[in-house]
């Protein structure tokens, strides 16, 4: 039963990546004109010789599936093609920016997980006014778009209180941390709200559950009731929502990078998209999708390991 669940989830991962890559590659052919014009990098009037070369390099004249398999094969080997806008290999472009994104996403993810779960748990356990306050604040946090938060933070900390640098990504660990604090906070806020709300609901539900009533009726000390029954049982849903939170941070990282000009894969993709540099957009979207899907799958598998009923339900 367990094994079957793992296999089902893993095959879903593979299918998702395959279908997504097909969509990413196929999107190029939706353009009304020659897909090759999307690969020369925005010039309105491309040189026919260059176009012909692109057709050859990207196997655009071969049957669709062949071209796709060729592209996917190359991607799997780390060859994402060339960007004519940046005059560089796409892999090289990605390589120099990946570290920035990784740092930002990790920073934001840590903030989301720690703050979100702690706030949610405390709210549920304390109840009363704390809970009302947290519910209101988190609902607010979820409504603030990352880019609006970015603007507010820049205005507050660059214009009013110059505590944090607001542009660039800094040197060294401390410098990076300092430079990434505002972007990470802006990026994290929405997801803190989300993680906190789901955590609160999960802990609340366990607090009201019948098995907790049983534990109390047996005279189990309250701290043990909370730890062994409330928090332990809520950890499944909390873990699941943490995964969603991390995935969400990754999916919206582009906005924060663009707003703060920190540079990274997200802003690379957006620049490339506005210049219609398809090779870069395809490569970065593929990377994002793979990371996103791997995180979702990991979370599902870990939840199933924690609570065998999840696996049983999922395998049916």
């Amino acid at each position, binding site marked *: 039963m367990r094994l079957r669940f793992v296999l089902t989830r893993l095959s879903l991962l593979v299918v998702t990546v395959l279908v997504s890559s097909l969509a990413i590659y196929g999107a190029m052919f939706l353009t009304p004109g020659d897909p090759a014009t999307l690969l020369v990098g925005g010039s309105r009037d491309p040189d026919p010789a260059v176009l012909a070369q692109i057709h050859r390099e990207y196997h655009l004249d071969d049957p669709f599936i062949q071209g796709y398999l060729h592209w996917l094969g190359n991607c799997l080997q780390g060859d994402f093609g060339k960007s004519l806008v940046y005059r560089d290999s796409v892999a090289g472009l990605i390589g120099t920016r990946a570290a920035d994104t990784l740092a930002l996403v990790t920073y934001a993810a840590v903030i989301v997980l720690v703050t979100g779960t702690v706030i949610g748990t405390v709210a549920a356990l304390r109840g009363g006014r704390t809970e009302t306050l947290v519910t209101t604040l988190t609902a607010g946090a979820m409504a603030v778009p990352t880019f609006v938060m970015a603007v507010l933070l820049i205005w507050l900390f660059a214009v009013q209180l110059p505590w944090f640098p607001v542009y660039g990504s800094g040197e060294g660990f401390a410098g990076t941390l300092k430079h990434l604090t505002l972007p990470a906070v802006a990026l994290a806020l929405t997801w803190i709200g989300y993680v906190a709300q789901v955590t609160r609901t999960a802990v609340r539900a366990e607090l009201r*559950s*019948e*098995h907790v*009533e*049983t*534990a*109390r*009726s*047996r*005279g*189990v*000390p309250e701290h*043990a009731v909370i730890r*062994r*029954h409330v928090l*332990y*049982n809520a950890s*499944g849903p909390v873990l699941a929502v943490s995964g969603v939170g991390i995935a969400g941070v990754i999916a919206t990282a582009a906005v924060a990078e663009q707003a703060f000009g920190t540079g990274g894969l997200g802003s690379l993709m957006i620049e490339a998209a506005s210049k219609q540099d398809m090779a870069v957009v395809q490569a970065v979207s593929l990377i994002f999708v793979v990371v996103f899907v791997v995180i979702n799958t990991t979370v599902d598998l870990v939840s199933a390991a*924690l*609570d*065998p*009923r999840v696996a*049983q339900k999922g395998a049916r």
Partner: protein
Amino acid sequence: MSATPPLLRIDGLGIDLPLDGEPRPIVHRADVVIPEGAAVALVGESGSGKSLTARAVLGLLPAGARLHGDVAFAGESVAGMAPERLRRFRAGEVAMVFQDPRAHINPARSVGDFLIEGLTLTRGVRAADAVRKVTGILREVGIADAERRMRQRPHELSGGLLQRVMIAAALAAEPRLLLADEPTTALDVTTQEEVMAIIAEAREARGLALLFITHDLELAAAVCDRIVVMYAGSTVEELPAGHLRERAAHPYTRALLSSRPSVFEAGADLRSIPGRPLSGFEVPDGCAFSDRCPRVRDRCRSERPAPSAAGDSTAACHFPYTAPAEEAGCHA
């Protein structure tokens, strides 16, 4: 009144719960006495307040509940217990078996974990000793392969087995009083017999007192010494189980008896009670049963009857039956 107080005395207990923001009476007046080692059944339909009364014994009421009257365990008021005393009281002197073991046993933890928790966390028994002890009790309640069962999770066990686990957990605490809240309602009849037999044997072996909450008068009469009938939040009758059929004085008790179709008598007429059972907060000024009572008179609608003793039993009725029941359709 004797010098030594009874094991449990519930005296004029009333419970108000906040409904729609304002306190409403769910239990008006519950009176129950359980001597050491005795078995008492608390019988009623939905809304009668029987489950809430049982929870009040453990001091296990929802937030916002208001209590009047008193629940005393061996002379000590439960409401007056300090938190630490209440915890020890729950851990060692009373134990509760709930109706739905699947919801009342933590589904994420193993059965063994549930069983030993009551010992290791509440009185510092070492884990190995606790395991040894609950293994023995599991055997006693008819679970032979205790080691395997203790490794399993609750969802791997059938409802009947899980209820035995719940009973084993209650027995492991070595309580003096067992509270059983409809422990067999969710089970098949054959499993019900098994579970009731297990409870009866355990009582016998340990001299355990029992408060048995049920909607089934026949079952209550078969396994208990005395019967307390509740209706709409009040105790309406209290009598020895053996006298139930002939000497039940309250019209509700008699109506309940005759509305249950008998398996064993052909042609017995089934008498239904008109209307539906009320909840405590819906009760009119007079007698709660007045709307459905075949013997209702004007006085019943204006004046709530107080319990009055007659011989070995007590009934709260202005016009109780005094002749032995012939027409009830359930000959002894």
